[in-house]
């Protein structure tokens, strides 16, 4: 059976590589639509990784929320404003230096975080049961759940108000 395990591990690595490639694509594509699509690619790869880690509820929710709703909103935005190409303006020498400095600082920070955590999977932690999640959501985390609901509601109304052109 271990050959199957190798296959699965190889699959995960492929997923991670594809995800990072898509992420780079999302940043560097001049065409907005391609950038949107590669972002969707990233999200699907992340869902794949959740699946391989066994959190299938989380993977499905990830696809449903991100790829189903958020990506549609992004593409709706692209559609309404129909900006096709973003001109990549060439950067002066000063900005390049500054950006390299920022990126390296960020890299150091994440590297130290990654190295300090021990990655051994917690043994004995069985799969998350959906109805446990539901019960917890309704019992221990009932307050944040309600607050979040009201917050989203406020966001919705705010969006509509902003979108309406001020009555001239």
């Amino acid at each position, binding site marked *: 059976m271990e050959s199957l395990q190798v296959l699965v591990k190889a699959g995960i690595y492929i997923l991670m590589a594809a995800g990072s490639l898509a992420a780079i694509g999302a940043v560097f594509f001049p065409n907005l639509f391609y950038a949107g699509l590669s972002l969707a690619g990233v999200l699907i790869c992340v869902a794949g990784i959740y699946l391989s880690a066994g959190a299938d509820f989380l993977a499905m929710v990830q696809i449903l929320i991100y790829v189903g709703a958020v990506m549609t909103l992004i593409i709706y935005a692209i559609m*309404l404003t*129909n900006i096709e190409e973003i001109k990549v303006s060439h950067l002066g020498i000063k900005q390049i230096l500054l950006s390299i400095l920022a990126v390296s600082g960020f890299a150091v920070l994440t590297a130290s975080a990654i190295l300090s955590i021990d990655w051994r999977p917690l043994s004995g932690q069985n799969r998350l049961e959906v109805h446990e999640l539901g019960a917890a959501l309704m019992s221990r985390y009932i307050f944040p759940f309600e607050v979040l609901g009201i917050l989203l509601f406020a966001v919705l109304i705010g969006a509509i108000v902003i*979108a*309406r*052109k001020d*009555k001239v």
Partner: protein
Amino acid sequence: MEKTLQSGDFKEKSFVLRGERDVDTQTLEINVGPQHPSTHGAFRMNILLDGETVVRLKPVMGYLHRNHEQIAENMSYAATMPYTDRLDYFSSMSNNFGYAMCVEKLASIEVPERAEYIRVIMAELTRLVNHVSLIGFLLNDLGAFFTPVVYAFREREKILDIFEEVSGSRMMCNYLRFGGVKTDIGANTLEGIKKIVRAFPAFLEEFETLLTKNEILCMRCQNIGILRPELAVNASITGPMLRASGVNYDLRKVDKYSVYDRFSFKIPLGSRGDVYDRYFVRILEMHESVKILEQALKDIPQGDIINRKMAPFVKAPRNFKPAVGEAYARVEAPKGELGYYIVSDGTAQPWRYHVRAPSLINLTILEDMCLGQKLADAIVILGSVDIVLGEVDH
């Protein structure tokens, strides 16, 4: 050439939707062009859309112009008769009826009783065919996948068989002659017509249960493309569109031409003048036509079918030279008032020949009905106006 509107200069002219437009978007100009599945033929609408709402609609016609009037002026009177079939190719008998009446008025020829009854029967049968197929096409524009059209065509087939039996051709009948009709109706053909007329109300019943109270149809058709009576009268709209707006004007009652005064029938009038009224007025008109047909079939007299004075001209149509003068005759075609205006200079060819095409004139106010409606409604309103491009562009 009228300056084509750029979307930029559209802003200050946007009269209709100033208040409604809350999200500032770009206008989209699309051509519901000559090659479009639901424009009933080669007809183009240049629509300026704001989102899905129609802001400007410019009909473009003339793709099917066949120079009918000029051809008629270079041919003898009888030779134009088969060309009138091609005007509104859904109701060829009514076109012949109008043309024959106009030449008879010009040359003052009487038409024997039996011929008049045959003409009325044929005209009312074409009205049934036209209204039934129109409702089918209107439902097609609404999206019902061909079912109403196929039910309508099942009835239309029976009536077209009668036309073939009587005149020789299903759609291009060329059946009427000046002073009467070409050939007589046999006894069994009369029996066939009676059978069809007897079965028609049952079909209408089924058609109505399928459509009239259908919520989706009501949602899509009620209060859409409202035509105010004053605008209809000013734009000289005629036919079911006018009556749907509540104006009581039907040539069969106004002119009482041919033998229509002998039949008792009613004229259905709508109240709101929207697409739903235009649809339902046509169904009621079909009920009335069935009533006329029953009475006409019951007391059709015997007798000759063409005026004896016209006998020599049957064999030699080119000798038929009406006196100098002009005549205008009009007939209540299924689409509206179909008028023929002929000026004769004594020769065998008319000096001036003009056709008043009802669908062309009914189309002029398409923009007024479509402004502010959605794109889907503009297509449905065009469908309810009932145009046939052969007649619009003649």
